[in-house]
């Protein structure tokens, strides 16, 4: 691109942003310049809400969701210059405003956005981004970019909120425990299929199997770990199974429910769980080749499941108690690759959904013309700011300062 065009492009982007602030009320732009005194009030209000059983659900989209083809900046010509083949034309999009449209597969999230129940946080990322799935995901899981950390941020949050580590405080529906929920004091309840979360036994064996193993003087660390897990399994399995067998919902979650019905079943059963963690599994969003069909399908499944989750919560009368945060370990490279896909990138949009969410756009838009190193979006919002928003703004918890390895200002996101 010629320098002259570059410059023109920049002007245009500014114009869009100005328009956006006026006409669309990009709430985050105000949020980022909140006066310190206001934080006190936000925190206060949220703290009183915490007593009312606020629940945080986190949905991970593994593989690196292509944020640019999810929330499409169709009003920016640069988007189409970077993506001549896979860029989604305006006519295909679900138009949100005069700058953005959602991927055509996202009917469910479109209506949530239009109902004012979805926040889109633009440009989330961190300094010196890693382009490795595993490394970047570990940074997001631990809220400790570019450093090592043994415990996950959700696990540490549980430790901070409830140091006495009551049973069933933290649930991870997964085949394997996520690093995000690894906790010093809590033993997260991790299960995949509720109806398989049971020790199958003959009548004669039941007493013998319910015996709580004696941890006593065990030196072998692996053995001690297994004995701890055995205790937690005994505590949780009956509750989870009961909740699931009582759950009977007419809501259509579509092709991949992303384990959200299991979360609803536990909430409905009155589990004391404050923190839930689920994921779209198996690196699904890693769309290096021929991505448009498959990416649209992934977004449809996600959007169906999330919209159904909110309807299901409304059905059981608990929609006001739950907020859902959605993230991916990175966005994707701004220019498309020659395989009609995209490679690992950096900054990305995050989403927060819930009936108490003040819907709209948050965070500054990353530039599509002044790209960061490696043709990537530069981040405008540290992702931990969104974590802080959920901790302080939603859960109303005044976290210990080191919890997120830095101080972050929450967005004013909850009504």
């Amino acid at each position, binding site marked *: 691109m010629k320098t002259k065009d570059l410059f023109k492009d920049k002007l245009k982007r500014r114009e869009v942003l100005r328009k956006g602030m006026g006409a669309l009320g990009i709430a985050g732009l105000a949020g980022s310049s909140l006066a310190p005194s206001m934080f006190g009030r936000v925190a206060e209000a949220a703290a009183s809400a915490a007593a009312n059983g606020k629940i945080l659900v986190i949905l991970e989209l593994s593989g690196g969701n292509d944020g640019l083809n999810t929330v499409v900046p169709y009003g920016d010509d640069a988007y189409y210059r970077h993506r001549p083949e896979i860029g989604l034309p305006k006519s295909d999009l679900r138009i949100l405003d005069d700058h953005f449209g959602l991927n055509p597969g996202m009917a469910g999230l479109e209506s949530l956005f239009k109902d004012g129940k979805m926040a889109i946080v633009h440009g989330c990322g961190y300094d010196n981004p890693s382009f490795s799935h595993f490394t970047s995901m570990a940074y997001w899981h631990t809220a400790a970019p570019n450093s090592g950390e043994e415990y996950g941020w959700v696990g540490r949050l549980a430790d901070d909120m409830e140091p006495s580590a009551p049973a069933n405080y933290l649930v991870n529906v997964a085949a394997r425990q996520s690093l995000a929920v690894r906790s010093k004091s809590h033993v997260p309840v*991790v299960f995949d299929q509720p109806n398989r979360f049971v020790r199958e036994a003959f009548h004669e064996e039941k007493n*013998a199997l319910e015996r709580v193993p004696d941890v006593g003087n065990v030196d072998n660390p692996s053995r001690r770990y297994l004995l701890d897990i055995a205790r937690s399994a005994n505590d949780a399995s009956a509750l989870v199974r009961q909740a699931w067998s009582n759950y009977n919902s007419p809501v259509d979650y579509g092709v991949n429910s992303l384990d959200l019905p299991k979360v609803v079943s536990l909430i409905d059963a009155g589990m004391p769980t404050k923190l839930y963690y689920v994921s779209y599994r198996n690196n699904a969003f890693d769309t290096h080749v021929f991505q448009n069909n498959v990416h649209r399908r992934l977004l449809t499944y996600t959007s169906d499941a999330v919209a159904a989750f909110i309807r299901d919560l409304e059905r059981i009368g608990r929609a006001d108690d739950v907020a859902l945060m959605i993230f991916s370990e990175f966005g994707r490279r701004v220019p498309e690759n020659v395989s009609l896909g995209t490679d690992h990138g950096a900054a990305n949009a995050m989403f927060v959904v819930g009936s108490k969410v003040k819907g709209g756009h948050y965070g500054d838009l990353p530039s599509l013309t002044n790209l960061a190193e490696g043709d990537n979006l530069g981040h405008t919002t540290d992702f931990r700011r969104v974590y802080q928003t959920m901790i302080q703004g939603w859960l109303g918890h005044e976290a210990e300062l080191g919890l997120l390895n830095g101080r972050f200002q929450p967005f004013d996101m909850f009504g």
Partner: protein
Amino acid sequence: MRGRITIALGGASIAALLMCSPALAQQGGIISWQDDLSPLANTDWNYDRAAHLLERAGFGGTPADIDLLASMSLSEAVRSLVYFDPAANIRSHPFDHSGIHDPGLEPFPPSRPATTDLAKETGEALGIKVKPTGNRRLQPVVNKFFYWLRASVLETNRVAYWWANRMVDSNNPLQEKMALFWHGHYAVNESKVRDYRKLLIEIELFQEMGTGNFRDLMVAVAQDPAMLSFLDAGVNVKGAPNENFAREIMELFTMGVGNYSERDIREAARAFTGWNYADLEFVINEDEHDNGVKQFLGRSGNLDGVEVIDIIMEQPVTAEYIAGKIYRFFVRDDLSSELQNELGNVFRDSNYEVAPLLETIFQSKDFYSAASVGTHIKSPIELAVSTYVKLGLEDVPGVPDFNSATGALGQTLFRPPTVAGWAGGRSWITPGLLLERGNFARDVLFPDINFIPSDRRNGSREIQSVARRIREGLDITSATQPSSIGEGQIMAESNMLADRDEDFNTRYGSFRGWQMAIERVKPIPRHTARLNLSKMVMDQQLTNTAEVIDYFIARFMRVAPGTDARSMLIDFLSNEIGTTNIVEAESYMEDSLRMTLHLLLSQPEYQLS
């Protein structure tokens, strides 16, 4: 090891076995041996350490297998495992193909839409022509697309059975254990590769080269169709390199993250441009190969992929990374950086030969130290295979299904969760999975009489309902309406999409694809484990229930459960058979013995090796 053992266990050796256990099984190793790579003295070599060696270098053994190893010297025992002769494996037989791959299927398009687009453009796809007129002209193409997806899945399950049988019954257990390591290291997934033939070829590569030279193996894997397909190497072309392949080679396969720059990745990607596969063969498309000068890890020149791998092999960190990973797989998770350096030196000094590294590890005092013995959490594959080995089975039962059972525990062969393979260690255990491990033991000891083979009957309710409605004579549109939605509810968008295109019906294609696949893929034999625990304990000339429990603990466990668990098991068995005298109870004690063993195998300690 297994299968060729002919030494009968006399009363004397059993007495010795009972004496050394469970006390020895609990004793573990010596603390001060930790981090010491010098060989264990022959005077310290015994039955229990032979059992530990066989657990780790293979999948455990029966008392007879362990006795045979213990009767050798330490170095003989280790060498018999490490320097196996693949040709001497009397138990191996080649995979029995169902014959499901048809001309026209290759190259298989990346998606259903890509397939139907191709058919619309050219009038043919997957070897199937488009109908000239009529409704759903593309339906046969779509059927064929789903046929191959489903058939490859089913046949891959058969390949997994074939491999699992080798793990249970090979007389070269390390050959299979090492192949399992490389399968986790070079993780490729059926759902992306979508061709059981490529997956089979890759496992055969690991079986053949797994204990050989790592550099040669790395080159072979980089030119292996399964890996090339999995990492999209085919789209890495001159002028527009795709970095996926080069990145994973460095990050996951050789050096680990942090030992190269993003620029090194881009340059290496250029060196691999043009590498591709045609059906089952590696090819280099010269037109797509970038012949320019590349700067890679401080070197420069018109490098190609093999030269890039050779430069990677010159990096000290490569030997340390791979030696450390092998060590973690076979020995223990925590490894000091000093020991990792030392292992890296051993590996480099042997010019990346894997066998000498393994020989050093398996002979070392560190391998038999307290930190190493009984601290490894078995992977689901290790758990299932070693359970069958210790029960004395010669093959894998068809009930429970091996793939579903290990999958429910978090590990399915040919389906690692990510490019990085299985995380292993403590991540194998969650509260849910710990219970599931006990359920696996019960499914083996008391096979479910209502078992439904998933390779014969499709478990999806949608497929079943489409099949039923088609048989009832409904038209395709009516038969494929989703049936699971509550009244007055909004239909999920994904469920509305299916029937929109009149050229074909995706749901019908999915149903018909299953039907065609089940017809052509050979069934997995569905025998249950033939067990006779009564005979097992009577052959040992045991007389009372306490001896039975101690025998089971010695035979099945490397870490004995606590004394309270032992008492519980003795009481349970005595109560069930109504006496402590098993000779009196011989005629009716089988079910009680099986329940007792189920309780034992459900103990947290059974997860350790």
